[in-house]
């Protein structure tokens, strides 16, 4: 093995090691509120909006506050840094990305999953009859 090959391999190894660490740091796992409370890592929680509790935008802090139930039915106050997410009212489920702090879930981002409107369904075609 000549010096070039060794340098090459060395660079690749460094790249892989750095990559691995940076990767494990950026890995955002799907979890539930219970696990999110025990470790304070950034994670994402899938669940649904608790409709009978308040959901409001606070214009002073620019935060949207709502209550969310995860798949284990654990309820949590979610504080989203930003406005009411798109299609919030009609979302069948929401995914909040963020971390737990002081008993609240502080979300950087909330994705809403809507019933797929991308392709029509049988009920839609019935409606478009003459």
């Amino acid at each position, binding site marked *: 093995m000549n010096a070039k090959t060794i340098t090459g391999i060395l660079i690749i190894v460094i790249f892989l090691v750095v990559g691995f660490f940076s990767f494990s740091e950026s890995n955002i*796992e799907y979890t539930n509120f219970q696990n999110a409370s025990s470790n304070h890592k950034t994670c994402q929680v*899938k669940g649904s909006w608790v409709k009978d509790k308040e959901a409001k935008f606070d214009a002073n802090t620019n935060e949207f506050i709502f209550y969310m139930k995860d798949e284990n039915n654990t309820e949590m106050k979610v504080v989203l840094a930003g406005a*009411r997410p798109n299609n919030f009212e009609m979302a069948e489920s929401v995914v909040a990305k963020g971390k737990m702090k002081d008993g609240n879930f502080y979300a950087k981002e909330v994705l809403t999953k809507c019933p797929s409107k991308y392709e*029509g369904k049988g009920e839609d075609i019935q409606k*478009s009859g003459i």
Partner: protein
Amino acid sequence: MGTTILYIGFLSCFISAVMYFFASRGNTKIIGPARLMFHVSVIMTISSAAYLLYLIITHQFQYTYVWNYSSKDLPINLLASTFYAGQEGSFHLWAFMMAILGIFLMGYLKSRDSDKSLSHSTESDKGPYEPLVMFTFALIQSFLLFIMIIKSPYMYVWESFPKDVTIGFVPEDGRGLNPLLQNFWMTIHPPILFAGFSSLAIPFCFAIAALVKNSYNRWLKLVLPWTLFSGMVLGVGIMLGGFWAYGVLGWGGYWGWDPVENSSFVPWIVIVAAIHSMIAEEKTGKFKKTSLLLAITAFILVLYSTFLTRSGVLGDASVHSFVDPGQEVYLFLIVFLSLFGAGGIGLILFRWKSLGSAKTEPADILSRESAVFVGAITLCATALVIFVGTSWPIFSKATVDPAFYNKMNLPLAILIAAINGTSILLAWKHTEEKRFFKSLYVPLILTGIVTTTLVILGIHDVLIAIFAAAALFALFINANIAIKIFSKNNLKAGPYVAHLGIMILFLGIIGSSKYSEEVNLSLPLNETKSALDYDLTYKGATPFGENQDKYHFNVVVEKDGKGFLLQPVMFYSEYSQGIMKNPDIANLGVKDVYLSPMSLESPKSFSDNDVVAFKKGEEKEVKGLKVKFVDFDRSKFSQESMSEGKDNTIGAEFEITYDGKTEKVIAEQLMTNGNTENVPVTLKATDKYTFMLTHIAIAGESTADLAIIDESAPSVQNPETLVLTASIKPFINLVWGGTIIMALGFFFSLYGRAKRFKQSQAKESRSIAKNGNENGNGNGNGNGHNHHKNGHKKVHEEAHKQ
């Protein structure tokens, strides 16, 4: 009829592939019929596309695809773009592009194979290329056409929904086109992107042909123009997508590391690496395996990305709506991917020994080919980072934070810029050390000066400063050479122009992402707020559009007395059943002011202090009134309409005493679609007070909250408030400009190559006429090669002279 056309197209394409296969095994007579069959399949593919377009334009809603994606109210250009709004259509667009490219490819191969001036110098390169290349190409096209047969755009609605409608049913109107796709950029982005995707099949086909022949002299010259074409078209296609995301989607950026973007970006990086490896191979004869491997990998990645984005595997990981295409398509995509993947990689492994046997002397470290090779490997490293990040959700229950891509790619981008700058100062094969180090002085000094200025002006992040320095270094070197070549009116400036574009793009990325400032703002009507050095005032909304159902939200942005109006848009879309939002952007040359609307908070005509809670039967004195909550009023309430989700009203009865007179007041809440509206009521005696029922609790202890608003009191009203994200994007124009310059560079390279080929052809034929059959050129690469090399040498000497 459409289905029949597709069947004929598929069968003729497949037969053509089989015939081409036999032609490649020596049966030269069959090549005529093979061409004929391919032409038939091209005609069928184009006819089918025309037929589908006809169905869309004439509103034949009995076809599920037409019903699903278009409607009568769309103008003609948007109607045309519904062609590729869904999966079936985008596969069709792909096949259509393949058909068009296939015609050009066949013509190209025919002329090159029969070209006497070329073939006499490449006798060693066993036989013609057309059969093998076209065999692979037709096979790929057969797969695409087969997908269209199993997921046909010609399904009738009664075939798609047998339970819901009867045979012969024709819907009155279609469902319409997603409003996000209803704009100019979305009409041109997909065709260009798919042209790029399709063209990536061509380097793959050439690589397969070379591997099967086990002969690697001619394929490189033949494939390079196509590879350049792919790089150019796919690059432009991707950036148009970025422009759409920036200008229409309101992401606030042009790039979000979304799986859909990544999956077309990765093949692009790999094909760009392939271009570099191929050019180094052309000059020096080295890196044979790398060129082949990259050409093959790029296409496999196209198939992989199709699988990622079309199979529904990423369902949870992206904001894009991925449609599950059904079991057959899913399985078929896997077969498609694994067949061509295994075939390509298998062939390379099979030929590995013979590929390595042609020993070349190891490259000098101080040579352009070494630098270009290391650059290509660095490009592959970025591709790998993005590939792993994008594929991650398949293997685990997690997604990758977009920050990962930025963190990992920053050092790689620094390397790419630095290597590019250095490589251009190096000569092919061997560089004189003294000369090289001398040539570094001027660009390094310039870089030092500009970078220092930038650091003083505000770049305080070390890595970013290094990135800027590396990009500037490469920029100066490329610009210098590009200008020198241009002053001679020579088209050889292509590579330098392309690199210049990339470096400008890098600087634009630094400015617009790292130094972008962003703030969430609430703008109450007519109230000026300061943010990001600007004064912003929301002046109300104005309706626009055909039905006056879209709204411009007028925001005046002012600084130092000078102002401009920005009008971000929000509207309710029946199609998406949600609020659509489009940003508005002021391009100020050195920066963009970008307003992305988030929501409009409706006026609340009372404040929290006005709300008083009552228990049933309780009486309170508020604002000079005696107020008693008597009971709920269920007279307009019906359990039935409640359970059916229809509108419903519930009231609460109050006895209110004003000025000694007692009145009965019923405050009501109107419930529609899950929204609750408080209906304001006043007393008969006076308009001074307004009452609104804001909250009720019927179960358990009955309570009612009543807002009591004294209209004569100084207003503490909250006006309607526009919530938006305001951001400043410095130097974003460099991003667009850099991309355009890069595309121009690709174009110059392509055009220059074509011109040189014609010149060398003319020269060769003259020399053949003179010398008869004498072997005129020994190096097996034609005259164009030498010409090209000399050109580069000249440039180098010029670069060194300064």
